[in-house]
Every structure is written in structure tokens, then in C-alpha cells.
């Protein structure tokens, strides 16, 4: 498995493609996690709803940075475009589901990218290849249990969650 991360360093985002790493032995990992948990705070707020009621339609600036003022997020999409294999897009569609994953796609994309937010970065959690090929005029809708993706030109819809097409 590859881990792709959109990071923000000195206002420039870069995609780091990490090479496959060797897994630590499971017992050692569990012990390490227990140690970390024991050292941190025990306060956890549960049932947090991160969902955005509406998708954000964002146009990148000349540097490829998109800025969503309403939901207060800014990042550079250049690495994503390179990964998708396209030069530029007019706008991207962004929506966040209840657990807090970001769904990103754009007109002509063959994939939906699902990112999990980290400290100053968005890490690719799942790359969902659309079964009917590149999507035209995509739109995300927030639904109670999932994210709905519409191909507005064909009427095709896909129900997504952070794990892919349901």
C-alpha cells in the first residue's frame, strides 16, 4: 500500500510518495500504542459530525491553491492534478462527510480522492476509480449515510463513503 499525503510546508504543498515500509512486528506496535495512549489525555469527544451540508466548488489560483473561506480550508491541488494526470482544472468539488474525510474530484477526473486530514496535511485515504470512466460535470451531495456523487451530464450517481463506492 502506498501512502500519499498533501502537506503544507512554508505555504507550499507537496506530495510525498513514501516507499513501502517494513511493518514492525505486531506485538511491539501494540505495546508502543498502549504506551502512547497511557501518556496522553483520556478525554475524548465522541459522535462528532464533520459533515459539510453542501459541497464546495473551488477555483484554483495561478499557483494551484484553492481556498474555501466558508469551511476554512486551503491547500494546493497541483500534486493531485499530477497524480490524476491532468494539467489543470477550472474548479474542483470538495465535500466532507460525517466522519471527517474529504472527497475531492473535478470535471474529467477518473477518480474520486478521499483524504483524511492530518496535522497540516491531507493524506490520501482512498482513491476511488469511477467505473464509468471520467466523470463529467460532477457534483457531491451530502446524504445522511453517505456522499452522493452525480455525473450531471449522464445522470449517473454513485454512493460513496470513506471506503469507496458502496
Amino acid at each position, binding site marked *: 500500500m502506498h501512502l500519499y499525503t498533501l502537506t503544507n510546508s512554508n505555504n507550499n504543498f507537496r506530495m510525498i510518495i513514501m516507499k513501502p515500509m517494513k511493518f514492525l512486528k505486531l506485538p511491539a506496535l501494540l505495546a508502543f500504542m498502549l504506551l502512547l495512549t497511557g501518556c496522553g489525555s483520556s478525554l475524548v469527544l465522541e459522535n462528532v459530525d464533520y459533515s459539510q451540508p*453542501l459541497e464546495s466548488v473551488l477555483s484554483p489560483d495561478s499557483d494551484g491553491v484553492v481556498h474555501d473561506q466558508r469551511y476554512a480550508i486551503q491547500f494546493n491541488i497541483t500534486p493531485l492534478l499530477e497524480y490524476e494526470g491532468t494539467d489543470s482544472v477550472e474548479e474542483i468539488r470538495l465535500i466532507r462527510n460525517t466522519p471527517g474525510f474529504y472527497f475531492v474530484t473535478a470535471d474529467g477526473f477518473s477518480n474520486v480522492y478521499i483524504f483524511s486530514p492530518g496535522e497540516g496535511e491531507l493524506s490520501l485515504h482512498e482513491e476511488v476509480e469511477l467505473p464509468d470512466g471520467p466523470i463529467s460535470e460532477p457534483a*457531491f*451531495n451530502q446524504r445522511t449515510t453517505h456522499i452522493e456523487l*452525480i455525473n450531471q451530464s449522464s*445522470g449517473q*450517481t454513485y454512493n460513496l463513503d470513506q471506503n469507496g463506492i458502496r
Partner: protein
Amino acid sequence: MNAPIKKIYITTTILLLAFLQTALVAQQSDYQIQQNFSAELSELTQRIDTTQSPGELAKLEIELDELRSRYAEHEELINAALYPETYQKRMNETEEQLSVALDNASVIDQLNSRITSLVGEIDAYRSQITDLNENTQALREQLQRAESNEERQAALLTQYRQSLEERNSFVSGFLQNLMSRYQNVDLGTQQEIAEAAERLDDNPIEILKSIILDYINIVDESTSLETPDYVAMRAQHEYFSEVWNSIGSNLVNTFSPENSSETKTEIDELMAAWVLSVDNQLWESLNDTFSQNGIDLEVFTTPDEFYDAIYNYVDNGHVTSLERNSEEDFAVYQNFSTFWNETVKAEWGDMLIEGEILSQSQISEIDIKLNDWEEASKPTSNLMFILLIVSVAVIVGLIVLLITKKN
């Protein structure tokens, strides 16, 4: 097609349509819905802003209702997009905007109706006053042509006077109408009418100007008029002046708001020119009429001088009668008294007062002085004196007789 197959066909069609509708509903983008809502509402508010016709605004009201019913189911979605504003707030604001626009349109509509009515009335006044002027003018020309025929001239003069009276009556009605409309008109209404009146080609002020000019023209060009006609004209001027003083400011503020003081001055000057024209004829004519009736007054050219002239005439007669008490003085008194009571007071009295030529109190003072003159001018009888002499003589005779008998 038999019945069961037909039933299956219809059911399939309904299901297919239902599926398609569901599919269509499912294809809607929430983002697009709120975008469409904002765009449609924005377009509607712009149209409300620029529409003035009540009919068009009523159509927009229907469109707003349709928009509300179309997007009501998406209220929650739109609220999320509009936060911190809400769907209801936007709709209420637009409804309020529409309500204000409808009120404004109603006011504009009323103003338009008022202007239409005003234009109609002004046209009617203009037309009628023109007819009256033409009639008066025609009679004046006929009078001038009939100078050689006294009988015909007298008949024409009667008609001419009737025509002037009719004109005066019409103008008085017009002034009365103006008074009732503009005497107590508030500032807001003045401004509303002023805005609408900008579209008028003619307006009451212009009509007033032309009426005054016509009056001046009638006075200057009429040669056959007599004292009562001029007295009546002065009375008409005073009534006009009273109305103008009462509504002049409101009229100029309404119909000439940009140069109200200049317009008021212009009318004031025309009024002054009118009364000057009347007075030029009036004093001379009055003097001639008194003179023709054997009453020679001092020269007068103002109402006060006219009063002084009459009062002095009566006072001088009174003094003379006191001094001489002659039959001749009594005849002078009788002549004046007859003319004063039967002509001046009986025929001209009201118009003299209305025209501010003489006031009621001045007439009363002349009456009082005239009574004094009457008392002084009545010839005193010698009969009592003679009877007294005779009585004294009889008494003296009787006394002498008694004394003589005793002796």
C-alpha cells in the same frame, strides 16, 4: 389490446415514470439548487427594483410565490448555504421589497390618475375660457361697429356685460376650485403633484397668468364700459387677489417648484398691472358719473381719496346748510342723497365693498354725515314765530282791555 395487457402497460408506464422522476430528483446537485435559488431570487429582486407598473408587480408576486413553493423543500439546504442568513429571511426581505414596490406603484398610479384628471380639467378650463374670451371679443368688436346705432349698441352692451359676468363667474368657479384643492395641501402632496406636474404642458399657474392678461386686455380695449362695469372688475380683482394670497405660495411650490419665488413675483406684478388698468378707468368713470349727476367731487385717484372726496362733499354741504339753510341747499342735499342711496349704495354697494373702493364703515360714516346734512338743510318754518307774535299781541291786547275797563 386486451384489458389485462392494457392494465400491465399502464402500470409499467406509471412505474417507469415514477422511476424516472426519482432518478431526475436524485440527479439534482444540492450546490446547484442553492445556486439556482440565489440566482433566481436575485434576478427577481432586480426586476422588483426596476418595475413600476402595479400589473407587472402583481405578476412578480406570483413568481415569488412560485419560487417559494419550489424551494420550500430545500429550505434546510439553502439555510446551510446562506448561513448566517436564512431562506426565510431572504424570502421575507424580498416580500417586503415587493410590498414597498407595490405601495410605491400604487402611489405612482394614483399620481398618474391625478395628472390625467388634472390635464383633463386644465384642458376643459382652457377651452372654456377661450370660448368666453372669443365671445367677449366678438361682442366688443360688434359694439365698436355699432357706434352709429344707439339702440343696437345698447343691446350689444347688455350682451357684452352679460358675457363679462359669465366670464367672471367662470373664473371665480375656477379660483374656488383651486382654493378647495390647494389651500390646505400638505408639503408631501405638493411634492408628489410637483413631480407629476413636470409632465404637464399646461398648469393652473399658466392659466391664472393668461386669465389676468385677458382681464387687463378687456379693461384696456373696452371703450363702452361704464362705472358699474369697472366697479365689478375691481371687485373681481380683489377676489382674485384674496384667492392668490391664500393659495399662491402653495400653487407655485406645487407647479413651479424650481423657481417658485420668481413665479410668485411674476403673478404679483400681473395682479398689480391689472388693478392699475382698472383704476385708470374706474376713478375717471366714477368722477364722470358723479359729475353727470350734479355732484362735483374733489379729484381722487385712490379709494381713500374717493372716500375723502365724498365725505368732504357731504360735510361741506352740511356746513353750508347750517350757515344758509336755503331751499337751494336743500335741493343739493336731496340730489346727493338720492344718487347716494339709490345708485351708489343700492346698485354698486356690494361691489364697492368687495372691490375695496369703500368699506362698510366708510359708507356708514357718510350716512351719518348725510343725516346731519339733512337736518341742517331742511328749511325752517316761520309759522310758530308768527303765532307767538300773534299770541303775545292778543295777551297784550287783553291786558290793555282789562286795565281800560277798570279805569
